């Protein structure tokens, strides 16, 4: 259930690289248990913002917390409380399924007993039990992405950041992936996701759209469509970002 309890608060967030303003005074909140879609054209400043919220980059100014921790001073605590998955790099190709899980479980400091229990449950859920000794590089992309997502939430983070998780994935697997997202939400995990598939924007509880370093729209897909007099999110996006 979506509450109004914020797990991410962003106030007046600014990030400059020299003269270039990548994030120009962003303001928004992400609520506990929601799927928050973070959209925008290439170069709009999405990646910069995500890196700040994951504790990987220090903003120029602003007042931001993630899972209750300050993005200037408490980046290590932030990292312990979030999961992250990107399209480009998710898992180690030369390690097996099992070794990847063990590695990430170790990085997140999980107890061995807990990691083992959750690994069994996860592989069973994904139907990958028979493949635990396969190298990641030998798996189809769709399987990899589902596994990468499951590993990103293995340590039960408060928030999971997904950066274009479904790019290039076939239409059936893409939908299975979204079912995994819904299951994670039911467990109370907040999902922060970027995508270029506009039908996926419809699956989000709320969507923000960035252009030129600013957030130019933020609402539920329903209200955005109403506001921009559009039949679907694709039209909303084209009207805003063009």
């Amino acid at each position, binding site marked *: 259930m979506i509450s109004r309890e914020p797990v991410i608060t962003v106030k007046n967030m600014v990030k400059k690289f020299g003269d270039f303003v990548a994030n120009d005074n962003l303001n928004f909140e992400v609520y506990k248990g929601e799927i928050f879609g973070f959209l925008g*054209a*290439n170069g*709009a400043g999405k990646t910069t913002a995500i890196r700040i919220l994951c504790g990987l980059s220090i903003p120029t100014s602003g007042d931001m917390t993630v899972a209750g921790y300050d993005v200037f001073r408490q980046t290590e605590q932030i990292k312990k409380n979030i999961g992250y998955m990107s399209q480009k790099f998710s898992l180690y190709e030369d390690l097996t399924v099992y070794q990847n899980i063990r590695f990430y479980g170790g990085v997140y400091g999980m107890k061995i007993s807990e990691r083992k229990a959750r690994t069994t449950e996860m592989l069973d859920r994904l139907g990958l039990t028979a493949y635990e000794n396969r190298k990641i590089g030998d798996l189809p992309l769709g399987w990899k992405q589902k596994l990468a997502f499951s590993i990103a939430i293995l340590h039960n983070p408060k928030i999971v950041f997904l950066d274009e998780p479904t790019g290039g*994935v*076939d*239409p*059936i697997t893409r939908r299975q992936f979204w*079912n995994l997202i819904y299951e994670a939400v039911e467990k109370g995990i907040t999902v922060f996701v970027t995508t270029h598939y506009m*039908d996926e924007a419809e699956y989000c509880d709320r969507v923000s759209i960035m252009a030129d370093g600013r957030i130019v729209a933020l609402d539920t897909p329903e209200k955005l469509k109403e506001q921009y007099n559009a039949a679907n999110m694709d039209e909303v996006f084209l009207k805003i970002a063009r």
Partner: protein
Amino acid sequence: MIEVIDIHKRYGDIVALEKVSLSVKKAELFGLIGPDGAGKTSLMRILMSLLLPDGGSATMNGLDVVSDYKKVRLITGYMPGRFSLYPDLTVEENLKFFATVFGTTIQENYHLIKDIYQQIEPFKTRRAGKLSGGMKQKLALSCALIHKPEILILDEPTTGVDAVSRKEFWEMLKRLKDMGITILVSTPYMDEASLCDRIALIQQGTLMSVATPQAMIKSFPEDLWTVRTRKIYNTSKLLENLPSMISVNSFGQVLHLVTPKGIYNIGSIQQFLILKGETEISVEPAAATIEDVFILLMNIPKERP
């Protein structure tokens, strides 16, 4: 014109292409639609003479891609899936380099790239590695066009590109096609299929269907329904238990339900959901999209001889 006859390719145990045959007409915009790992890149690399097939043959404007490979390269422009220009050279230097390699100049064929190149010309002294995704893509297309190719092979030019830039890119392809260039383009975005003259749906190295997008949609063999509900996930789980249903998938804010031809009507589907406790729902017949066709074909198990 591109002719592909029975091309097959394996990497060890993995079958990348299994007896693929297709033909692309002159000045046709032909789309190869399929997910990662379907075999799109392997086919394009074979056509570009960058990879040898295990069997079968292919010609580009009558030239064999194996025996006439040098000539093939002169008449084709290629945009690989990965950005492959020189990141340390500027925009203009990259373009000049490709023109020189093919024994021509930017001036000579400027008319071909004008529409596209003008958009990045203000940044011509910027290094290619410093360009945004959309700009890199425009530069790569300019470089692929600068020697005035008869055939263009574009490997997922719009992957990872935002919806606005994707739209602009397809408008550019349309103009190139109108100039008489034959274009083979691949994409994982099913919604881009409708922008092609003809498409091939490819999955696991096999062409599942080749037709115009309109014909493919029209020949959807089963009944398709749009189901609107407040609880997408819940309703979709319920519909999975509808007797003999073929598939139920979310499409944005609605569900697409596929059932065998002639078995259900609006009333009987509504009744099924109401009996399961779903009240706020609506059901209506819907036209298929290319994604529906793709999902349906994926669900049919591959026949093996």
